[in-house]
């Protein structure tokens, strides 16, 4: 049987595209099979709001990625109009917070420095492939040793502090440091964003560190909007793919991996077409990769257990409101409206929003992260990330969707009283919709929770880290692998490296 391709990538999400292009640049003949009509996966206006910047290591291995970013400041909205505006610059932020509490302002700088040094210590680890400790190879131990050293080099005091904080919940830490509840709420919001945690859930602090590591080691810096939107980003990647002669087959969903002698040798499409290649890479989430592509009959029981226990229930819905005019947000100027607007007034508010989601129910007072898109050609659009919109909500999304949307709009009405009259159309994409339309089981941004038991060499599951699966010749490059989701391209790049190493 002749290999038609060197590599087949399943899924044209951004990680799949990055991975394919790096391989194509190394003279591999690459085909991408994408189930949907469009490429880009979750990098789409209907899903993405704000993004981190693609790291230099990723863009340089693509030979440059001509994407322009606009840095965004953050505004925590307050019903009273006493908003907090932060830009990610220590001096400016200190001054802003001083306006509320001089104690908080000083504490904020200290807190930020501490968190920043921790996220930097994690940083180098975030970019590279995680070690596989079971392998007993020198390079794996060296990597682990290096992480240990990075953390230890912080000094004894900071090391102890790091050890104290690693399993901590963000609420305790924030309440220890700050008195302003709006500031507490804002930081807690960013710590739990995209996760299945409340501010009082253990592990919510490392979630924030994790976020910082991909956001310029800053809490409110490193937040960007792509110039031209998600489409521009995906088009750029497609241009590069074109140049690198990466073939892309859209509307071609893969049914399963074809195996021979327990090795992946190709894919079978739902149409029945069979395509063969030396290596197969899945950009799909771990559950789909294992249960659908690999097939349950080819998995050991222990692996089935791990995949079944893999936590990947999405909690974020995206609501897009098309507006006929710009709404009047209380006490907001033009600059504020261009910022990232957050509605999470306090830790307790977030926790209350989180509580029903523990039982797969919905809170009618969720937390919101909003982006107002103004363009000269068309109507303004208010894009809102709504959390905690539980995957598989008990109330049934079909039944409750309209009520839920109304509740969100009512909530925004507290900050922009005229919002109701501005709305022309409303579209909501729930985690269930993400699962159905984007083929991500659980509809989770990160293809799986970012929590200590699903991080680093445990991501997505023990025995499948380092982008390899249990099946020879089948790899993973999606958000389910280290270091997780977010528009970074790191999983895609690391997976490409793993494949080149094995070849």
């Amino acid at each position, binding site marked *: 049987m002749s290999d038609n391709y060197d590599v087949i990538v399943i899924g044209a999400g951004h990680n799949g595209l990055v991975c394919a292009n790096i391989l194509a640049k190394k003279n591999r003949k690459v085909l991408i099979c994408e189930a949907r009509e469009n490429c880009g996966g979750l990098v789409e206006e209907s899903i993405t709001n704000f993004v981190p910047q693609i790291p230099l290591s990723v863009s340089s291995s693509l030979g440059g990625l001509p994407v322009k970013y606009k840095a965004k400041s953050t505004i925590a909205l307050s019903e009273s109009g006493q908003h907090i505006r932060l830009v990610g610059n220590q001096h400016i932020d200190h001054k802003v917070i001083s306006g509320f509490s001089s104690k908080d302002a000083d504490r904020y700088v200290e807190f930020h420095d501490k968190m920043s040094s921790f996220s930097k210590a994690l940083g180098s680890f975030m970019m590279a492939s995680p070690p596989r400790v079971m392998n007993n190879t020198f390079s794996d131990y060296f990597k682990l040793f290096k992480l240990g050293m990075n953390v230890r080099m912080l000094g004894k005091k900071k090391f102890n502090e790091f050890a104290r904080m690693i399993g901590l919940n963000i609420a305790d830490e924030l309440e220890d440091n700050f008195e302003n509840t709006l500031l507490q709420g804002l930081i807690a919001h960013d710590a739990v964003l995209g996760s299945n945690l409340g501010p009082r859930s253990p592990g919510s602090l490392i979630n924030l560190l994790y976020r910082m590591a991909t956001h310029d080691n800053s809490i409110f810096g490193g937040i960007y909007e792509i110039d031209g939107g998600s489409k521009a980003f995906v088009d750029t990647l497609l241009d590069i793919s074109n140049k690198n002669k990466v073939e892309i087959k859209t509307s071609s969903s893969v049914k399963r991996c074809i195996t021979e002698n*327990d090795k992946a040798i190709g894919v079978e499409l739902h149409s029945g077409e069979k395509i063969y290649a030396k290596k197969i890479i899945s950009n799909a989430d771990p559950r789909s990769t294992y*249960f659908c592509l690999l*097939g*349950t*009959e*080819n*998995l*050991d*029981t*222990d*692996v*089935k*257990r791990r995949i*079944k226990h893999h936590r990947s229930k999405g909690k974020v819905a995206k609501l897009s409101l098309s507006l006929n005019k710009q709404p009047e947000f209380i006490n907001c100027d033009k600059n504020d409206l261009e910022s990232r607007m957050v509605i999470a007034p306090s830790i307790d508010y977030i926790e209350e929003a989180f509580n029903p989601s523990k039982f797969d129910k919905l809170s009618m007072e969720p937390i919101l992260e909003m982006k107002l898109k103004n363009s000269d050609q068309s109507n303004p659009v208010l894009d809102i990330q709504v959390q905690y919109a539980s995957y598989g909500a008990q109330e049934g999304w079909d039944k409750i969707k309209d009520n839920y949307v109304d509740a969100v709009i009512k909530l925004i009405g507290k900050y922009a009283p005229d919002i109701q009259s501005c709305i022309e159309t409303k579209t909501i994409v729930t985690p269930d919709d993400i699962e159905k339309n984007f083929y991500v089981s659980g509809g989770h941004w990160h293809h799986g929770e970012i929590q200590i038991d699903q991080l680093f060499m445990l991501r997505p599951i023990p*025995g499948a880290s380092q982008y390899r699966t*249990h099946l020879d010749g089948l790899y993973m490059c999606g958000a389910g692998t280290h270091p997780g989701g977010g528009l970074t391209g790191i999983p895609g790049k690391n997976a490409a490296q793993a494949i080149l190493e094995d070849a």
Partner: protein
Amino acid sequence: MNRDLRFTALKKTPFHSRTSLASRTNKYYNWNGFTVPTEYSTTELEYTAARNGTSVMDLTPMCKYMINGSDANKFVDYLVTRDLSQMEDNTVAYIIWCNEDGKVMDDGTIFKFSNTKFMLCCAVKIYNWLHDSAEGFDVSFEDATDTTAALAIQGPTSCSTLKNYGADDLELLKPFGMKQYNINGYDVLISRTGFTGDLGYELWTDPANAENMWDSIMEAGKELKIRPFGMHALEMTRIEAGFIQTNTDFMAAEDSLRPVRMRSPYEIGMGWLVHLNKESYFVGKRALKKEKETGNSERCLVGLDIDGDKPAVGSVIYNEKKEDIGIVTAAMWSPTMKRNVALASLKRPYGIKIKENIFAEIYHPEELEYKKIWAKCKVVKRQFFSPERRNKVPADLYE
């Protein structure tokens, strides 16, 4: 009153009224949550019955799982290392199963009724394991441990005893065959299987039939030297037969705290049950294939023929340089073979390539003193006792 008791009492098997009546010593032990006799009178007498007449043992505490569903045959083939795709209906197969690292979890027997119905019999509880393994297969499980009464009828006159009991044409049943009977108004499944290495059968029936079955069999074997036997006598017969026991000769993978204690099939002499050329995948196949290819099995389980007549229970095994090379997992003086035998787990290449100059250090208790014996061992086949009558068809009959 009951809720004040801290512990729940052990369960009694459906044969308890009869086994307790037969017990002179009142010696019981806990087998899988049931109370069953270790010995009824003297172990030696019970052993002798097993080798010369008919012995009866209450097997009810064995874990018994019914596996049903349209994928049942595919599922059992996936679960175990042996290739069962060609297994015929109404037969039984000896099997082992492994975890993902190719380490043995337990051994047992699988009974095939049809492609959609099986029964799995084993020592260690695996209900969870079955359920977790079943992802992707159309199968359902039923734990039949409490709802099936089981009796082992073993020994040279066992076939005659059961024929007297009402099992017509039983002598024609082949080893590892099974046959459904209706005796005294109850369904009784009889399989030609056992743990003594001799001619023998196992009977499976409704608990309501248990007492009647026990009484009828005792009556049927009256002239055929029938005798109930307990765990200690069974231990003797199974060592002679070279059968291994989970958590005695090797640690079940799920039970061992130390990963180095887990054993692959190749390390406990069960390599013959691993069919790597089986077309479909089975749990542990990748790991076992790798172990086979690299040949990095570390241990082996062998039979030892030991000089002298003092059983080498718990002995450490040495080479000629007095280096520790393994341990005896089970040992006895075999009254039938008149040999001092043992099963031992050795570090390779001992037992595989090096079979000479192996010694056991035996501490033989003599009235509060130990006599230390340095005994020479010979590596031999594990099946010390395997009489011709064991596999003979038709089976021997006696009057």
